[in-house]
């Protein structure tokens, strides 16, 4: 008798639990206020298939800025460019010293300033790691639609 009762209870639990498992996607949708994730409707524990890597253009014309304080984008590949204590590959063309000969864009004078506005004799340590702000570009479509437009002076 006891055994039968346990089985019935177990069966009932299984029946009530089953719909929850099968309606995973529905629940993900209904519980998030209608906001979709770029990851898609998958559990956080699932590993998504990775996107193919985008290719960075080897060398293109300088890319226009989209807003006034935007750090200019890097219009070329930077593979293997060393920026560390020993060497800064970017500055071997873009520094004040080398830009003229190399025909490269000179870094702006703001790179010589510390955060309290003192101008140093060389690139300020806080501005030394170029690729923190200046990044290479690839032909990647925006993941989310947006209607951003540059201000008139930049158009």
């Amino acid at each position, binding site marked *: 008798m006891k055994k039968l009762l346990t089985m019935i209870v177990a069966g009932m639990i299984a029946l009530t639990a089953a719909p929850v498992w099968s309606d995973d996607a529905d629940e993900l949708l209904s519980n998030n206020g209608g906001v979709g994730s770029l990851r898609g409707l998958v559990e956080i524990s699932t590993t998504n298939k990775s996107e193919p890597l985008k290719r960075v253009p*080897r*060398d293109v014309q300088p890319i226009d800025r989209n807003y006034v304080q935007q750090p200019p984008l890097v219009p*070329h590949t930077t*593979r*293997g460019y*060393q920026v560390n*204590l*020993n*060497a*800064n*590959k970017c*500055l*071997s063309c873009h520094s004040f010293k*080398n830009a003229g000969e190399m*025909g490269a864009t000179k870094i702006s004078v703001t790179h010589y300033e510390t955060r309290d506005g003192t101008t140093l004799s060389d690139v300020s340590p806080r501005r030394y790691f170029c690729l923190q702000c200046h990044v290479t570009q690839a032909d990647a479509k925006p993941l989310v639609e947006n209607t951003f437009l540059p201000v008139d002076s930049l158009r």
Partner: protein
Amino acid sequence: MLNLLKRLWVIMKSPSSAAMGFILILGFTGGIIFWGGFNMGMEATNSEEFCAGCHAPIVKEIRETIHYSNRSGVRAICSDCHVPHNWTDKIIRKVQASKELVAFAMGTIGTQEKFEARRGYLANREWHRMKENDSAECRNCHEFDFMDFSEQGARSVKQHSTALASGEKTCVDCHKGIAHQLPNMEGIEGW
């Protein structure tokens, strides 16, 4: 002692009683064994494993670079760039390298720290050597005459069609640190 030498000289001077053919065969096989062995020795000391015996950390560094991993799978090993391909230059470099065996015995770059401290010196020596021979080892693969500027990026064309074409600069003047991490570049021309 002198007697022994005299006896040896007599043996060497007097004609052998063995048949001419036998002597020739002996000579040929001896030649093959010695020449082959010599070349094998040369090859063995040109292998990556041999280089890594002392320069292990630097051999690892190439893996991130274009000379190790790239789209077409062509790659360079240490000796492609660091040992001249021309026979006489190669022998000269190999003889010079015997000095490096002393460094190995003394453990001059035996640890990562010692190696890092010496990186600048070692790099400068190689840059100087390549500057002197007009980057001969680069040009074993990258021949200027066969460069198609239309396939190169604008930045490359600009430098290659002027400074490189006129011979004013050589490959290594700009292409430093293309297969290794750079040492401290303070005071190096162009940095």
